[in-house]
C-alpha cells in the first residue's frame, strides 16, 4: 500500500471515530435533557443512528471505495430493502391488529371491533 493511501485510510478511521462519538453523545444528551416532545426526540435519535450507520459504512467498512462493479453496495441495498419491509411491515401490521383489548371481555372486544371496523350486522 502506498504512503498516501495509508495516510488517507488513517485519516478516515480518525474522522469516522470522532463523528461516531459526537453522534452518540448528541443522541444521549437529547434523551437525558428531555427538552423537546417525545416524538421529536424519537425521530431525531433515529435520524442520528442512521447518520452514524452511514458514517461507519463509509469510514470503517470503506463501502464507498470499492472498485466497479459495486457488488458489495448492491447486496447492501438489497439488505436495506428487506430490512425496511421486515421492520416497518411488522410494525404497520401489528399496530393495525392491536385492538388493545387486553382489558376487555370477549363480548366487549366483539363490540369494539364491530364499531371500529364499521361492520353492519
Amino acid at each position, binding site marked *: *500500500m502506498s504512503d498516501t493511501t495509508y495516510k488517507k485510510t488513517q485519516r478516515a478511521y480518525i474522522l469516522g471515530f470522532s463523528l461516531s462519538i459526537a453522534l452518540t453523545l448528541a443522541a444521549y444528551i437529547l434523551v437525558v435533557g428531555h427538552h423537546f416532545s417525545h416524538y421529536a426526540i424519537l425521530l431525531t435519535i433515529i435520524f442520528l443512528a442512521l447518520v452514524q450507520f452511514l458514517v461507519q459504512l463509509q469510514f470503517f467498512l470503506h463501502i464507498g471505495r470499492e472498485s466497479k462493479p459495486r457488488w458489495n453496495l448492491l447486496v447492501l441495498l438489497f439488505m436495506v430493502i428487506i430490512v425496511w419491509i421486515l421492520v416497518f411491515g411488522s410494525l404497520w401490521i401489528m399496530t393495525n391488529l392491536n385492538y388493545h383489548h387486553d382489558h376487555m371481555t370477549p363480548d366487549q372486544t366483539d363490540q369494539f371491533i364491530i364499531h371500529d371496523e364499521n361492520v353492519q350486522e
Partner: protein
Amino acid sequence: MSEAVAVERKQDTRTIFGFWVYLMTDCVLFASLFATFAVLRNNTFGGPGGDELFSLPFVLAETLILLTSSFTCGLAMLAAQRKDKRMVLIWFGVTFLLGLAFLTMEVTEFSHLVAEGNSWRRNAFLSSFFTLVGTHGLHITVGLLWMIVMMAQVFTKGLKDNVVRRLTLLSMFWHFLDIVWIFIFTIVYLAGAL
C-alpha cells in the same frame, strides 16, 4: 503486477464479497429481532418498562467502549497493511480487552436484571429484549474467540497473505457488530428511556 499477485487479489475480493453477503444476511436476522422487540416493547404484563430497568450512563459507557474497540480494530488493520506484526498484536490485544470489557458489562447488566426478578420469563418485552441483546452478545463472544485464534496465527505464522485476509474478515465482523449496537443503543435503550 505479477500473475501470482493478481490471482491472490482476485481471491481476496471474492472471499471478502462472500463474507459481506453473510454479514448482510445476519442483518436480516437482527432486523427480525428488532421488529419483534418493537412490536412487544409495551407488553410488560404489569412489570417495569425500559425507563425503570435500564441505566443510561452505564449503557453509554458500554457504547463508547465498543465504539473505541471498533476504532482500534481499524488501527490494527492499518498496521497489518504496513506489515507491522508487533503493532497488529498490540492493537488487536487492545480491541480484545475492550470487547471483553463490553461483554463483562453486558453480562453484569443481565445478571442484575435476572437477580431482581426481571428475567426473560417475566413478560414479552423482556423476552424480546434478552433475545435481541443476547444475540448481539453471542456474536461478540464469537468475535472474541475468533480474535484469540487470529492473534495466535499472527504470532506463529506472521502476516502472510492468507492471514491478513482472515484479519480483514474479522475486522469487518467487528465493525458490523458495532453498527448493530448503534441501533440497539438507540432503539432499545434511548427510545426505551423516553
